[in-house]
């Protein structure tokens, strides 16, 4: 597309500004985690690793980290199974209520977290289920499923149906066809969906607030509960930096997988 020189400069400036607004605060937090002073004051002063040392010895953040990992792993595992099954059903078969089911399957990602949280919370109470790891994992799975479903469904729609027919034609039974053809061609989509679901669950706080049992503090909850305690502020900066890094890695990998998949599927 043709664009005048002026238009390109304006767009470049604007894009840079937006990216700065988005990422500068995050980088600033990371910088503060090695700051000598305890405050958010600008400019940052000096360098120290004492907060990182302190954080590595503090039991609060470490327990919270393991709880977050536990929750994210379980929620994405459930999402992988259910999301994949749903995407197969909805891309391969036409049935009564097809469109309604496909809409309902992706709806949870659009629902405000606070509504999902409150609704699940009151639902659990009504049925008499005490809040626990289980209730939290189920809550996270509702939106993690959508991510897996979208990734896998997109891949399935792109797979030529003739590939599975060719496999059957060459003598493979349905299990061989799944094992040798369908699964290998879906694998990167599954992995990408799983990693994104993991990242989404790992830093979720709104739904978590309403569905985690009391005393079950995930990493984002720990940050939220400690950021107004001046003494803990440097620790919060360290933990926040860890959360950011741990969220970036799976998202980065997932994106590489989705991009690379096109080349691998050889179009």
């Amino acid at each position, binding site marked *: 597309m043709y664009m005048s020189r002026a238009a390109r400069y304006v767009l470049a400036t604007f894009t840079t500004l937006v990216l700065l607004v988005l990422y500068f605060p995050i980088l600033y937090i990371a910088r503060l985690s090695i700051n000598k002073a305890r405050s958010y004051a600008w400019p940052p002063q000096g360098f120290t690793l004492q907060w990182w040392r302190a954080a590595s010895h503090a039991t609060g953040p470490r327990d919270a980290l393991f709880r977050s990992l536990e929750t994210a792993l379980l929620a994405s595992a459930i999402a992988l199974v259910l999301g994949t099954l749903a995407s197969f059903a909805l891309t391969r078969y036409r049935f009564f209520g097809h469109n309604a089911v496909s809409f309902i399957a992706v709806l949870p990602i659009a629902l405000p977290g606070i509504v999902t949280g409150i609704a699940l919370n009151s639902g659990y109470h009504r049925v008499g289920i005490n809040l626990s790891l289980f209730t939290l994992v189920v809550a996270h799975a509702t939106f993690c499923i959508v991510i897996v479903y979208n990734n896998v469904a997109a891949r399935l729609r792109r797979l*030529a149906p*003739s*590939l599975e*027919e*060719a*496999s*059957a*034609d*060459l*003598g*493979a*039974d349905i299990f*061989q066809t799944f094992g*040798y*053809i369908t699964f*290998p*061609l879906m694998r990167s989509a599954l992995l990408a969906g799983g990693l994104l679901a993991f990242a989404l669950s790992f830093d979720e706080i709104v739904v978590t607030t309403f569905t985690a049992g009391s005393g079950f503090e995930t990493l984002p909850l720990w940050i939220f509960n400690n950021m107004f305690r001046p003494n803990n502020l440097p620790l919060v900066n360290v933990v926040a930096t860890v959360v950011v890094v741990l969220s970036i890695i799976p998202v980065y990998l997932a994106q590489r997988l989705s991009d690379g998949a096109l*080349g*691998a*599927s*050889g*179009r």
Partner: protein
Amino acid sequence: MSSGAAVSLRGVTKRFGAVTAVAGVDLDIAEGEFFSMLGPSGSGKTTMLRLIAGFELPTAGTVLLKGRDVTRLPPFDRDVNTVFQDYALFPHMSVAQNIAYGLRVRRVAKEERNRRVDEALASVRLDEFGSRRPHQLSGGQRQRVALARALVNRPAVLLLDEPLGALDLKLREEMQVELKAIQQQVGITFIFVTHDQQEALTMSDRIAVFADGRIEQVGTPTEIYERPMTQFVAGFVGTSNVLQPAVARALVGRDAIATIRPEHIRIVAVGAEPDADEMHTIATVRDVQYLGAFVRVRAETDEGARLVVDVPSFTGVGADVALGRRCTLAWSSRYVRAVGQSSSTNTGGEE
């Protein structure tokens, strides 16, 4: 059930909801035959192929492979292999792994597998390409891999679904010759689906012309081209002048639908007379197209019939066929064929 038939179809019908794709087809395809199913899109030829492969189950009728009823068997229990229109090569496997696939899932021992894959690669002149991925190959090479992947299993019947459709003209013509040569070498029955009448005429031992889910005519290329039995076949295979009964009576003295090929009509040179045994009429030239080897003239006779006449370029028709000129058209009555009313509502057209 006829002995010696590789494939026998008995009253095969396939309906998709309200649409009848294949309507009661009876057909015997002999062993070792190069058999083409020719028809326009939507004529049921591809559905017929998928019914033989086992990707679709017929609504009614029986499919026999070498005399054995396979109507209800899944694709993997049928001794047929398919070359798909889009080739359907497995993108995550190398060329050699693609070709080995059928042997691998049937648990053929590794040494034999490797030997047969090497043979198959050599037979399609791709010896050096075994380790490539499909996306690193050209269209013609992919086509040959698809062929090798099917043939390595030594099926009783090979099904080919418009396999040359994606290739450009030059490559297409080369592959036509190569396919035919490979078929004669391996001696396997080929069932070839195409909408290209030229392709069908060039390669086939016999052709079945499909229209609206039915077979209009089965015969050798010569029979199909020279003795079309229906209006549809006359119009779809090559170009034909189809004369409705009223015009046919006036022009050729037949009280039926009659056809005559454009190359069988000649334009009598100005000042000359038609031969004594020829039929002739006076016509006005309405359109002239230069097509290289011949000139296609559209003329309107005084009886009101519009005729297409192909005049070989070397005869130098020149000024005789200028627009609006009056000329004498002549033809021998042995080239006039009366054809049946087509079972198809489709009249084939000029394509």
